[in-house]
């Protein structure tokens, strides 16, 4: 009884994980059912159903994992940060005009997309960017005046590149996909998106 009370208290205070043994068994059962009930189609293969450590932790703790431990925020964010491939030429800024086209493009990675076809950035699906585009989503924050309000320093450039490459390195359970980490976008494409956000000439900052 005492131990249960302590666990409940720690769990309530957010000091320890709240998942139980039953949870683990139910999760395992779900994965078995998924593997049985889904089939591959086009480029979408069954291995997509397997969770990596980040997906597993965020699912298990309902997007609010503890900081410590192997499945905790601290270790996983550090691992994700270490997996970012920074540009070899040390440059983060590409062409904002290409960036705008990419931001508009919502294609990529579905079973109706062709293998090898370049994916878009999907940005307007979730964010406001250039003010003339009225058809923008609201799952993510508005990025209008992103560069104007943050400046264009090397630190901001690096952070912005890293965030698009692997948003989970900065905020483990963010809704935002890991565009570089999962190979959705190339380094050059990410640079173009950084330019869209930071170039003083970009419509995002005007």
């Amino acid at each position, binding site marked *: 009884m005492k131990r249960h009370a302590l666990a409940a208290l720690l769990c309530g205070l957010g000091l320890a994980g709240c998942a139980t043994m039953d949870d683990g068994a139910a999760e395992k059962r779900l994965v078995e059912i998924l593997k049985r009930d889904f089939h591959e189609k086009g480029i979408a293969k069954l291995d*997509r159903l397997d969770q990596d450590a980040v997906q597993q932790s965020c699912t298990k703790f309902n997007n609010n994992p503890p900081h410590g431990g192997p499945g905790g925020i601290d270790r996983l964010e550090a691992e994700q940060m270490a997996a970012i491939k920074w540009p070899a030429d040390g440059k983060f800024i590409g062409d904002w005009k290409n960036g705008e086209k990419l931001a508009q493009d919502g294609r990529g*990675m579905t079973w*109706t997309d062709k293998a090898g076809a370049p994916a878009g950035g999907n940005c307007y699906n979730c964010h406001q960017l250039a003010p003339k585009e009225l058809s923008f989503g609201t*799952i993510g924050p508005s990025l209008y005046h992103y560069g104007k309000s943050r400046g264009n320093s090397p630190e901001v450039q690096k952070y912005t590149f890293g965030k698009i490459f692997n948003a989970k390195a900065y905020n483990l359970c963010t809704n935002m996909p890991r565009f570089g980490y999962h190979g959705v976008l190339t380094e050059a494409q990410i640079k173009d998106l950084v330019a869209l956000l930071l170039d003083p000439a970009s419509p995002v900052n005007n």
Partner: protein
Amino acid sequence: MRFRRVIGQSLMAALLCAAVPLACAQDGAATKEEKDATIQEIERYREMIADGNPAELYELRGEEMWKTPRGPKKATLQGCDLGLGPGVVKGAYAKLPRFFADTGKVQDLESRLVSCMVNLQGMNEAEVIARPFGQDAYKSDLEALVAYVVGQSKGVTIAPPLEHAKEKEAYALGKRMFLYRAGPYDFSCATCHSENGRRIRLQDLPNLTTHIGASRAYATWPAYRVSQGEFRSMQWRMNDCFRQQRFPEPGYGSEVVTALISYLAQMASGSPYEGPGIKR
């Protein structure tokens, strides 16, 4: 075809406005004229709906199919038990998904229709579910049957049972699936459907973790989808969500999809069913 095109063009704009009124204004600080125009568009849309939902054409086709002897056994579907007894269609959809003793499974409308076509009419299951969704010239029998059956629950309170152990199991599995993050974009259902007032582009996203949000979605699906010129079933809705989630494809009428539908139906329980709906 002409009907589809005309309806498609005029309804698309109106539906977008109806779904997201603010989206039709030029910016956050919409002028009075713009707001009036938006309200007029919504009114126009409501009138069009009152004039008739193209889903009715599918309902009629489905009803005829229901009553016509088909399959190797040359039987109608009038002996099909949708949960309220053989042949009872009125109000049956509002009480689904539910556990069926004869199959030993929790079934949604579509997997139940497949069971009836196989068991009563002698059809081959693999053939029945080979092409469950209509496209272009191809029209799906299942979608028409769905249109007919859901139309017979219009105005009926959504109240699927949650008593049998397997019904509870399906609900719990669906809830768990809703939160499962995976794939190249790390998406779960909850990524897009667990907060109020969110949208993708101009498409508003129901918060399916609330009774109101789930009701809004569940009560108006299945629906005629104007942009596709097709009537779409709940299994289709789940299928296309998984496509956009960047997952592989779920089996038609499979346990995991039925479980998700069970979860949504329970979340919407107590609200009147208003379908078949009409969507952009």
